């Protein structure tokens, strides 16, 4: 590509055509301040903080979305620019609630950080505000506080372009412009899938997860309750982010130690249930293959994806595996098998999930997720999973309890729902469920030992990945998609009849899979996602068991309780059905 020469703050620099002024400046050590900018997702130039002077242009231009030109002379730090940035920031602050100390993003807020960086010492403008805009906590997972919204449009663009859901839009005009669902709807009344990607990109606290930590503190206090906790595969490489550890650091043992110090009665692992999912889902696939069921089969672990297909492609619901997600399998097993085994009244078992995900809150509240209640025929057992906490909420609880997370010792999960395999750990990354399923399906179908258990073809951040695995003469064709834009592409192909010869398709709602989930520590960007994926595969490689069907605790569960995959109890506890939505 053509090289262009330009001057930034007196320094000559040569860059490729099409590069923005912002990126060119970074090459000479100048980080032009930004606010609304989010690489590849939001380059709309709304906030006007990144304005720079270009010689020959009367007005300022925004560095984030102005491409360099040959011979351009750019100045990034003149008195006029500083004044402009500061006034812009003052305008934003004049309509922002001054309540940092009680804000959930305190200390992790881009507006707060920018105010510090730009040395704003007074807000000299005042006037009308949006302080009366109501909070929208209509959904299970996401809370919107439009008072704190700075209308940067990141959420709009991530929702519309990355996830192709389009639940929120820019409403109104002029000063009255605000971000929200169309027609003043509540978020719960839209097709929002509660993936929480908007919460990840929000620079302030205008979109956050619903905080359920108080419910957990209360349960921990209640002597009658036997409070058990499960930790999702992706959380073991992300919680450390909130305590200054590098992204992707495996912290499994420390997380267990921390949960024990918070007072949980038993610390279990969703990975156990992930192995169980593979047993059930793999068996379902084999059954569909052998008995001519609807193919390709889709995975069902990702609740955002499930809500997406229910809204946008209800006609294809028969393709979705009937298996519950690992979280919901765990809840049902904890309140039946575990309660029975330990001799605890299932009414008193309180299940908390630590999830990378805001949509999991919605999943746990789905009316049908009360299998234990139906199993025991006891309406007082309300839900299979009582509270879902996101990684961020757990991080906050640990900070509140003053737990020195990075210096905790490594501890082990409790028996019997704490034993898991590497196949379960990789559920946290895109392609992981597929890889885990292939490891088990191959051995179950062929009866042979799989030598090469790493399926590199389905790993990594490519949007859509494919592989072909020969099993007993059948070439099993699989596909993996993550991020709902890619999911939509796959669905459109399916609709057009192009995927007839595929057998199994994994879809994860969030880019990168659960390690990039909407409940994960902020920031979560592409670089962070990549590190977390690497962390997950490191965890896998270090595990004693790496195939789900080799998990001795799973074998024991089938032997003592479930009998066999897709058996009667499995159907009652581990499988579900879906609801077509508008």
């Amino acid at each position, binding site marked *: 590509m053509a090289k262009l020469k330009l001057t930034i703050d007196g320094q000559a620099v040569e860059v490729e055509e099409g590069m923005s002024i912002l990126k060119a400046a970074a090459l000479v050590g100048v980080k032009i301040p930004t606010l609304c900018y989010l690489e590849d997702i939001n380059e709309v130039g709304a906030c006007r903080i990144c304005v720079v002077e270009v010689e020959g242009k009367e007005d*300022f231009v925004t560095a984030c979305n102005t491409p360099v030109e040959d011979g351009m002379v750019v100045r990034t730090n003149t008195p006029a620019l500083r004044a402009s940035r500061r006034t812009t920031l003052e305008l934003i602050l004049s309509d922002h609630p001054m309540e940092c100390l009680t804000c959930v993003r305190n200390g992790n807020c881009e507006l707060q950080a920018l105010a510090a960086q730009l040395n704003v010492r007074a807000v000299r*403008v005042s006037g009308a505000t949006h302080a009366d805009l109501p909070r929208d906590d209509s959904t299970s997972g996401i809370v919107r506080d439009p008072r704190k919204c700075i209308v940067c449009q990141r959420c709009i663009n991530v929702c519309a372009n990355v996830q192709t859901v389009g639940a929120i839009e*820019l409403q109104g005009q*002029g*000063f009255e*412009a605000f971000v929200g669902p169309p027609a003043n709807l509540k978020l719960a009344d839209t097709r929002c899938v509660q993936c929480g990607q908007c919460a990840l990109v929000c620079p302030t606290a205008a979109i956050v997860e619903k905080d359920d930590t108080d419910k957990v503190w209360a349960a921990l206090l209640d002597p009658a309750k036997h409070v058990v906790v499960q930790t999702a595969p992706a959380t073991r490489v992300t919680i450390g982010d909130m305590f200054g550890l590098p992204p992707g650091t495996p912290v499994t043992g420390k997380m267990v130690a921390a949960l024990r110090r918070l007072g949980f009665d038993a610390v279990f692992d969703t990975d156990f249930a992930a192995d169980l999912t593979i047993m059930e889902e793999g068996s379902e696939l084999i059954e569909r293959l052998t008995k001519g069921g609807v193919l390709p089969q889709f995975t069902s672990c990702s609740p955002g994806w499930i809500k997406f297909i229910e809204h946008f492609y209800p006609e294809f619901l028969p393709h979705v595996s009937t298996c519950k997600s690992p979280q919901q399998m765990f809840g049902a097993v904890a309140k039946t098998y575990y309660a029975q085994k330990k001799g605890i009244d299932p009414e008193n078992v309180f299940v908390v999930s630590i999830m990378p995900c805001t949509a999991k809150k919605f999943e746990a509240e789905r009316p049908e997720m009360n299998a234990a209640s139906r199993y025991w025929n006891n309406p007082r057992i309300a839900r299979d999973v009582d509270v879902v906490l996101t990684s961020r909420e757990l991080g906050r609880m640990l900070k509140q309890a003053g737990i020195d997370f990075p210096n905790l010792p490594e501890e082990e999960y409790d028996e019997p729902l704490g034993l898991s395999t590497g196949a379960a750990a990789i559920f946290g990354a895109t392609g992981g469920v597929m890889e885990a399923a292939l490891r088990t399906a191959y051995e179950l179908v062929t009866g042979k030992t799989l030598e090469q258990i790493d399926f590199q073809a389905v790993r990594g951040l490519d949007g859509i990945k494919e592989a072909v695995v020969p099993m007993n003469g059948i070439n099993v064709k699989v596909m993996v998609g993550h991020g709902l834009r890619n999911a939509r592409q796959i669905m459109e192909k399916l609709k057009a009849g192009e995927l007839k010869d595929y057998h199994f398709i994994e879809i994860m709602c969030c880019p990168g899979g659960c390690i990039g989930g909407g409940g994960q520590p902020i920031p979560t960007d592409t670089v962070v996602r990549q590190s977390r994926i690497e962390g997950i595969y490191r965890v896998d490689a270090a595990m004693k068991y790496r195939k789900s069907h080799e998990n001795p605790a799973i074998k024991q569960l089938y032997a003592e309780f479930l009998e066999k995959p897709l058996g009667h109890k499995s159907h009652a506890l581990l499988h579900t059905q879906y609801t077509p939505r508008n």
Partner: protein
Amino acid sequence: MIFGSSPWPEVAPTTAILDAANQAGVRIPLMCFFLGFNEGGAEVMGVARVIAPCTWPGAADPVLARIISVVRGLMGHAWPRNICRVEMTRLLLELVQENSCGTCVPCRVGTRRMLDLVGEVLLGRAADLFILEQLGRIAELVGSSSKCDLGRLAGKLVAGAISRRRREFIAHIRGNCPGTFTVDVHLGTVVV
């Protein structure tokens, strides 16, 4: 007479031109002042650089096109010299706020803050001249940093008004309007 793309509405003979324009859906008076039609040649030249109707790149924008067509329609027509500049500023800002897409901060928040500040000036509620500094500062920002021409135009026009017509703003702050009419009372009495 063609007024923008629409013909003059039918109005009673004594209707103020302002009212007539309003009925046509257009706020007029701001432009005549801001374009310096009554300001003499130099001023016309000075401002025409900013918003020359034919060369203004934003002419493709429907809102600007409407403003520009209003201006064109008024070319050659005499306009009272002693019209209240502060009120015009307010009308301009009102128009911009109504039409701002709300995307960028300077235009969305800045023009609203200016509108409020000018309102304070008009109502004689401004405590001191600091308010003009405030207005100037925001106008400067909106004029230079807005995303599209609508905000830039508004910022520059207001900045120009404050620097050229500072005396009149100060008069308002001190409690009197040097124009022959003020906000509410006189708006309808100008007849061309």
